[in-house]
């Protein structure tokens, strides 16, 4: 009975890979800094999902612990990002990343 409801690991990994790609495309295409930060969050959460799927395969807690570490990291990363965003907004009155680009390519 339990066999029937098990999701194969490859499907979980494929879902994570799709989420990861969506996040990556978001980072590359979007010009709004908030949306870029959100895309990074999507990528990091895709990694978390992959770890959980892998952890479920091995029946070990490692995957879930890694997920918690990823949650913490993502929170730290994005909070610094939002702090920088506030600074950019205060000085430039915009959150478009191209307008913040003063250094030559």
């Amino acid at each position, binding site marked *: 009975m339990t066999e029937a409801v098990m999701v194969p*690991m*490859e499907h979980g*990994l494929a879902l*994570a*890979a799709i989420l*990861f790609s969506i*996040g*990556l495309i978001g*980072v590359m295409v979007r010009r709004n*800094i908030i949306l*870029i*930060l959100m895309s*990074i969050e999507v*990528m*990091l959460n*895709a*990694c978390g999902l*992959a*770890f959980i*799927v*892998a*952890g479920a*395969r*091995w029946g*070990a807690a*490692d*995957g879930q*612990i*890694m997920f918690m*570490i*990823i949650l913490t*990291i993502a929170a*730290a*990363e994005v909070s*610094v*990002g939002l*702090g*920088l*965003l506030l*600074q*950019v907004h205060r*000085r*430039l009155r915009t959150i478009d*990343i191209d307008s*913040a*680009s*003063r*250094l030559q*390519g």
Partner: protein
Amino acid sequence: MSGLQLQALLPIITLSSLILIQMMFIAFARNLRLTVSISVIALLLTALSFFPMVDHLPISATPLIQLDGFALFYSGLVLLGALMVTFLSYDYLRDQGERQDEFFMLLLLSCLGALILVSSNHFASFILGLELLGVSLYTMMSYPTRGLFTLEAALKYLILSGVSSAFILFGAALIYAIEGKLGFTELAGMNHTSAASGQFILLMGSTMIFAGIMFKLSLAPFHLWTPDVYDGAPAPVTAFLATVSKGAIFALALRLFTTTGLIDLDPLLRGLSFVAMVSILAGNLLALLQDNVKRILAYSSIAHMGYLAVAFVVAGKAGGQIMAMEAASYFLFAYFLTTLLAFSVVTIMSIADHEVDTTNLGDYEGLFWRRPALAAVFTATLLSLAGIPLTAGFIGKFYIFSIGVAAEAWLLMAFVVIGSGIGIFYYLRIIFAMTKAPRTDVKIEIPTASGWVAVVLTVSLVLFGVYPSPIIDLIGELMISFG
């Protein structure tokens, strides 16, 4: 946990508790001199706390941390770099208004991350160290309120570094899905899994980790962020990014790829050779087009990372591993001295300017007449970067060259030679600019701390260029206890 294992964690414990003490002092008795003194004491005490365990190497304290000679050497480099950057930032930030204290706490936190990275033996500690290093670094970059450039550099670095961390994490998840293990030692020999689908996922995973690490090391074709971030970030922070951050990540990569046996994976090794060649060529050629000292140094660091990658490739060939690690370690040591010295000159030049750093080649014109000592120091650095004899940079490059020849990697060696040849041209360009007639007579003040940093680094640069055997012997002794 035994006493020995606790001892192995002592440096991390020491540094973390001193960071807490420093935070308390900043909260209740804000005083820049005091904060900086605590930073210096913290770094020195951490360095001291390594000594009791020297006779017991290697020690693995918990599955996460592995302390061996290799980790010890790189920890020393990290602490040296952090100490120098502390002095430089003190002079740089001192006159820029109040509330500069937290910067030094972030510097120590970043250093803690680097210490964890160089001794990490598990994906969990790898990620924790990497992010501790990275997140503190973005904050340090945007800390000084100098115009918009710092902000832009920090934002760019944050986004790209976040993406590369995600790559590394996803790769680790894929490897975990196939192998069920996260420790580097336990993963040894994992590339011999038989199932074809597992083999594919493993290759995907290792490629993603590889790409993430290349991003952080700014190897071509993932180098696009480097010049902008180097240019925008405050000079002392750039020095930290170029030395401590890259050095720690390189050490981690070397440990990860050699202990897990990923380096034997043929597609990966071929990719790495390609990356090394492209980095050497792109770094050196693009540096020719620049008129900004920090950007030239950025491209030169891309090229230098390319030379380091050569050592990495040789490490993957049979029998060359220990030799390659010794060469990489000496090269990195020379790179640390040289880069720190280069950025200490840029820092000294920039202190008087409160808007942006003084980095245009024009600003350096006539430096030989305005401040002969500073110009001489900068000349020594540039010669070391170019790999001219009597400097540490020459010995480093010679070492890389000798292992390449021993491993018969002729194509790579051709690139190293061509790259070094092009390199001399743009380093000499800066030196010629310094000999021109000066544009202004404004006196350049050399602050005490930065001045001493420059003196110490110049002396060691020349000393270890003329008489490198103490360091070479030390590296040889320490690398024996690897693993």
